[in-house]
């Protein structure tokens, strides 16, 4: 993701209605928004993302701040739209297709896991975390928010954000597929396979 100061001009112009500037913001942030929502609401991520941008467009004239603030502001909108969506759906959010098997892995499954689109694979794993950890990891790592901004989006204290992030990362580190992938990668390097 490009550094936020590059987005400053686009943000400024978009606030005045410049469509191509808005397009820059959208292209920069939509993948992260989509992926965050994928983890949080599952298959309605696209719809909720559209609602997020629509609300952002409507409220943009009331937004003041730099691109970093904008990023946090946008994800806060996304989170609220996601919460609304979950209420509408009235059920637990579906996670992206999760091929995790409890317990051990066969090598075949692990290989399959490696070859699947790696972003989807990563999101699937993050989605297996408890919600607060999954959200913290997504906002810190994928949305690129710092601890205070993440705390603002989640409505939590910064200490809670750090704890949730750490727990999430540790849990991911010990996940069988992650460890298998680590071994796979090492093996490929050692044997010289590309």
């Amino acid at each position, binding site marked *: 993701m490009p550094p936020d100061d590059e987005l400053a001009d686009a943000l400024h112009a978009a606030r005045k209605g410049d469509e191509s500037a808005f397009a820059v913001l959208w292209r920069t942030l939509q993948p992260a928004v989509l992926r965050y929502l994928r983890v949080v609401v599952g298959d309605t991520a696209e719809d909720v993302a559209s609602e997020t941008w629509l609300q952002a467009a*409507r409220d943009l004239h009331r937004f003041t701040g730099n691109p970093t603030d904008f990023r946090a502001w946008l994800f806060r909108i996304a989170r609220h739209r996601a919460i609304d969506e979950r209420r509408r759906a009235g059920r637990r959010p579906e996670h992206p297709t999760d091929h995790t098997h409890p317990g051990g892995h066969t090598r075949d499954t692990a290989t399959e896991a490696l070859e699947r689109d790696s972003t989807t694979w990563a999101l699937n794993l993050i989605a297996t975390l408890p919600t607060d950890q999954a959200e913290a990891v997504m906002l810190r790592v*994928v949305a690129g928010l710092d601890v205070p901004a993440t705390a603002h989006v989640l409505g939590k204290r910064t200490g809670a954000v750090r704890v949730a992030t750490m727990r999430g990362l540790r849990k991911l*580190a010990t996940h069988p597929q992650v460890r298998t992938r680590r071994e796979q990668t090492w093996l490929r390097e050692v044997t010289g396979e590309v």
Partner: protein
Amino acid sequence: MRTRRSDQLDLTQADQLIAGNQPSPRHRGLSDLLDAARAPGTPEELAGEQAAVAAFAAVHKRAAAPRGKDRARAPSSARTVVVTAATSLALLALTGTAVTARAGNLPDEAQQHAHRLFSALGVPAPRTGPTNPVITTSPSADRTKPGSKPSATPTPAPDKSAGAPTPSPGATATAVPAGWCKAWQAKPSGKALNSESRRRLVEAAGGEDQVDDYCADLTASPTPENSATTLPAPSTSGSSSPSNSPSPSASSSTKPRGKPSNLPTPHATTPSRRAP
């Protein structure tokens, strides 16, 4: 295999991973996972750009006219304009011209000019002559007989998406931002509005008991903003002007219904409101 506590990620390593650095070979798998999660956007993820931009454009077309290309020459703050006009008018007052201008008694050309500058302060357009080329917006265009739609030309629709009770900088050239109506409707008798906005809303509607109908008409017909006016002041001549003089306001602010003589020409102009 259980992970020993000493093998677990520590704070420094976690920060490094988040920053995109790989702390140690032991955490290579996790590092890969995080890199995959934040990999560049894919074409599939970026496919919806056109729809998103279109939605953005639609939002901005409905929003206040002063924003955007066709308002580029207008001052960004309606309040600034009014203040400037007030200052100019104050200066004019020294020569006595202002009084004449307010009464609409200047020669046509001068009156026109004064009107163009000072309509926000209650200076009316020249009485004689055809359609005033200064297209001032008029709440009367919205407050036609019940159920009737504004004319085909872009009529003013103070349809601001903001819910703010006060006009924001770059406020529209229409009489009343829709946000005021929302605030009025939200709380009985407009307690959510500040007193200035509330007064102007009541003035524009022609009375406190008219506000409900006035707002209903406004919200019923969300036509595109009239962007043709060159005067970005937040009011038509007199109808919701910040001036304290009641008479231009009262006579210009169209009574809500049943007054055909107040039905404006498509370019709502004061001459119609000063019809004999």
